[in-house]
């Protein structure tokens, strides 16, 4: 299933899929409207990277949205969001490799040999490729228990992406640090003690939250 598209999708899934193409549409629009400065290559590189990171964070937010807030539909879009993250990361890579460097391996080698941020970015992309390739139901069945361990590699991948971002900016690291903070938060709420504590809190708040979450009990962890 390409990008997790299924024939029968809930409205929420439709919404997420449509919204996920939005950033690409805006990027293409801006390109043709010449809204990307006189250095459009750099603009596309930076923006596609930011979009990819955002989708990675979105996909990592799905599990806590369910466990902490009891928002079950999040689980139905987790894979799709992860695949969109991969999609935009690929776009980001192609902008760098094919457009910026014209696939000139000489130049890429010159630069890569001491551009640390490219190395960590490339490593993160490699992980995402493996995860994308094994994101099918068939792989899940085939890999069984190992599938879960394999897909926990998304955590180090996300960490690498944040480092990639921090190292690529000139001096002002506030935005990359903010992204790192969000990632840390999303990982923290996965820790069993904290997760249990938050779930209990939610049970105590009960009614109010349930009305927001349209009375869905949290789904059992399926990952």
């Amino acid at each position: 299933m390409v990008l997790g598209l299924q024939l029968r999708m809930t409205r929420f899934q439709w919404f997420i899929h449509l919204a996920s193409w939005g950033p690409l549409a805006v990027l293409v629009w801006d390109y043709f409207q010449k809204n990307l400065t006189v250095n459009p290559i750099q603009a596309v590189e930076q923006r596609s990277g930011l979009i990819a990171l955002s989708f990675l964070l979105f996909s990592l937010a799905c599990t806590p949205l369910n466990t902490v807030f009891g928002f079950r539909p999040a689980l139905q879009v987790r894979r799709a969001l992860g695949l969109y993250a991969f999609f935009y990361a690929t776009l980001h890579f192609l902008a760098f490799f094919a457009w910026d460097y014209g696939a000139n391996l000489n130049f890429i080698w010159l630069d890569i040999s001491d551009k640390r941020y490219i190395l960590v970015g490339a490593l993160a992309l490699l992980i995402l490729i493996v995860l994308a390739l094994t994101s099918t139901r068939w792989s899940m069945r085939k890999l069984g228990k190992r599938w879960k361990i394999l897909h926990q590699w998304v955590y180090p991948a996300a960490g690498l992406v944040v480092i990639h971002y921090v190292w690529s900016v000139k001096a002002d690291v506030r935005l990359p640090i903010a992204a790192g903070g969000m990632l840390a938060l999303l990982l923290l709420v996965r820790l069993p003690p904290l997760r249990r504590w938050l779930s209990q809190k939610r049970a105590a708040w009960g009614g109010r939250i349930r009305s927001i979450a349209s009375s869905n009990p949290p789904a059992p962890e399926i990952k």
Partner: protein
Amino acid sequence: MKAIPSSEITPEHLYRSRRRLLKGAVFAAAAATLAACAPGQSTTPLAAQNSSATPIAAQNPTAGTTPGMTPAATAAATTAMATTDELGAPLTSYKAVTTYNNFYEFGQDKESPAMVSKNFVSSPWQVTIGGLVKKPMTVDVDDLRKKYTQEDRIYRLRCVEAWSMVIPWVGFPLAKLLQEVEPTSDAKYVRFQSLMDPKQFPGQEDSYFQWPYVEGLRLDEAMNELAILATGVYGKPLLPQNGAPVRLVVPWKYGFKSIKSIVKIDLVAEMPKSLWMAAGPNEYGFFANVNPEVSHPRWSQATERRIEEGARRATLKFNGYDAKVSALYQGLDLKKWY
């Protein structure tokens, strides 16, 4: 994406020789039309004072119309005046030069400076030159323009972020100003300071950086013939986003050294600490010479993207001004003194 078969790609040596032919033609045309076009450029008060038009471009390599040149190339050559740098690279457009700027005082993205600076007041404007000098002075920028012959200088600008432009500045050698104030024997460095005015420079509200912007040069660097104080670009007075009304241009160094909107120049004994040195001491050194062999700690400086050009190009040592500035750094470990 369709790959271009390798048979269709011009071999590098042919490509280079083509470039040389083209360059020769352009310079021939440039030399022939220089006299003719000079009055044309003089429509602005700034350029009216041009006496030595493009001293760099004037050092032409051998020129001549060459058989085998395409009609397009010939046409380009005949309409060309000083539209290239001395290496034959075309000027970056006025639009790009005035809309793609790093000027954190106006905001951190490239387009903010042009948009935010519309109401910037750059006249009247005074510059104070003092410190270890015998004749300190405070002078109006208009007087600076009148006092010193304004020259056209086509310089490459290489940003530390690995993009570059070719820009026709109008300005005068910094050395002339420094000679006039007569530095004392204790003066070893020149410290430049930009305007501090958060009302006009909203970026200065952001205390992440230590405002005002400060930059520095060693005295011998400042006296180098390439170092200019620019008051204009493309024959017009500088726009605020380019550092109006007066800015430094030191083309063999990364762009951030070329401090904008200068209000104060001091001759000092100690190496001044620039804003970028304060922001990232391990990453931005005092010298900041363009050097493909010395990487920024986090990224390579081996190649660059010339704005409005398709492919990347290799970065040149001292941004291609090796012959004029390398003597300044004899015996200096450029890896240590980045």
